[in-house]
């Protein structure tokens, strides 16, 4: 039998044991964003016709939290294991690079999805929103969380200090998720910033996810799914390559 199921179980248990911090806290943060931005901007922004700004915000904010927490899960688990040294307990058993990849990736996705479900559960009774195309929503939730879960593995493997990981998180993941059309429709931007937004793979994950609720989006959901899946595929390939080479893990 493979060590993969146990590694996946351990990675899920790790965040679940501190779920107040890893699930409840991001749900609360998201709700605060929702309250503040909905109050401040509701009168000024009309994103999609027939959709109120508060409704528009919910899926975007939920997806942003899902992306950030998927990244946080694999990256923080790896950096902690590396710095405390207990990574040896994963490196010594007969677990392949592919199994390590799959376990960390899936655990990250579970965390991201748990946060997403938490956000919807908490907003359900305040702001009921339709789910026009549930399969699209699920597909983008999976691809988005996978993309950031893989990115988190890369960051966790690459970082040697918490400082470096924090830089990765604050200077790359935060801006890219924040500026991915969570708070506005891309069509409200000047042409230059529209073009820049289209280079951001997270934008497609959020736009496509929103399509699952309102059946409206800035770009075609097929195009979004294509771009997000390609980004997920590329990140996965890089991650697997690093793990197989033992980059910064097996010296």
């Amino acid at each position: 039998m493979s060590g993969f199921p146990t590694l996946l179980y351990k990675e899920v248990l790790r965040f679940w044991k501190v779920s107040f911090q890893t699930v409840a806290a991001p749900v609360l943060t998201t709700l605060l964003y929702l309250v503040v931005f909905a109050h401040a901007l509701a009168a000024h922004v009309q994103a999609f016709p027939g959709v109120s700004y508060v409704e528009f915000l919910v899926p975007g904010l939920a997806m942003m939290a899902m992306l950030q927490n998927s990244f946080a899960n694999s990256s923080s688990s790896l950096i902690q294991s590396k710095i405390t040294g207990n990574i040896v307990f994963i490196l010594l058993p007969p677990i392949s690079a592919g199994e390590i990849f799959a376990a960390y990736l899936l655990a990250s996705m579970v965390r991201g999805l748990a946060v997403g479900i938490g956000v919807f559960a908490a907003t359900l009774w305040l702001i009921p929103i339709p789910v026009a195309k549930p399969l699209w929503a699920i597909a983008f939730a999976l691809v988005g969380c996978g993309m950031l879960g893989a990115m988190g593995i890369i960051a966790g493997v690459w970082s040697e200090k918490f400082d470096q990981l924090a830089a990765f998180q604050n200077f790359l993941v935060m801006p890219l998720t924040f500026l991915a059309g969570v708070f506005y429709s891309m069509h409200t931007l000047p042409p230059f910033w529209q073009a820049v937004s289209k280079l951001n793979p997270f934008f497609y994950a959020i736009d496509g996810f929103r399509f699952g609720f309102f059946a409206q989006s800035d770009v075609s959901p097929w195009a979004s799914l294509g771009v997000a899946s390609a980004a997920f595929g590329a990140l996965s390939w890089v991650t697997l390559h690093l793990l197989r080479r033992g980059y910064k893990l097996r010296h």
Partner: protein
Amino acid sequence: MTAPIAVEVRGVHKRFGAVRALAGVSLEVRAGEFFGLLGPNGAGKTTLISALGGLARPDAGTLAVLGHDVARDFREARRALGIVPQEIVFDPFFTVRETLEIQSGYFGLRANASWIDELLERLALHTKANANMRSLSGGMKRRVMVAQALVHRPPVIVLDEPTAGVDVELRQTLWAFIRGLNAAGHTILLTTHYLEEAQQLCSRIAMMRDGRIVALDSTASLLAEFSERVLRVKLEGCELPGALAARATREPSGWWRIALADVAHLEGVLAQLRHAGATLASLEVAEPELEEVFVKIMRRDEARSSP
């Protein structure tokens, strides 16, 4: 019939940047041996163990555990190997039992509770089974690490300085346990700085310095070749006779050390003392010590390698 080769190291080189950690190491450990790997800090012992466990990748050379190449056939090699790392490390998220259950799972073992119970019992950890790893003392964490290395009942067990910073009682418990495993057929590879332990436990010893093996022989042969029995005497109110003083050294405590090539020579030395009218305050015959062997071999190698 010779036992199969448990650990095979062939021509292993490893550099970390400018540091040459291993410079062509080859050795074989037979199944069932209690083998000691000794050397000063920085000799390359831990790098060699890391290479065996797949934590370090050699620049050249091969390593195998029970015939399984550690790179090509990593699953079988790692299944056959249990390593207790030198540094105390643990996962603060879990209890002792969870730690051992998870470690079992990494080896694909789902129903391992009875062996885990036995390990906990034999390593005197059963009262701490449900305690969080954080709450354990250093010695207890060390024992959990031993248990972690043994969850999959590996035929080859590697202990990298397992008794560093461990109290006497625990050290004895640990050695009794490891001796029992060796008696049951497990191959043991041990590194330690306590040469007395190595002398008592290991049947064969390799000494390393600067990434090379500088001595490799049975413990008995090393002792016979490099160490000798010493007669220690303390005299009262007189000096050592000149003939003996030439071959003796004086310890700071005032004891004289007189080398004895053979126990049979003891008679002659005592006769000389009596003849000179020396009064003995105290006397003892010291057995050969591995520490002496170690110091001599390290000095010899230092003299050889310095230009």
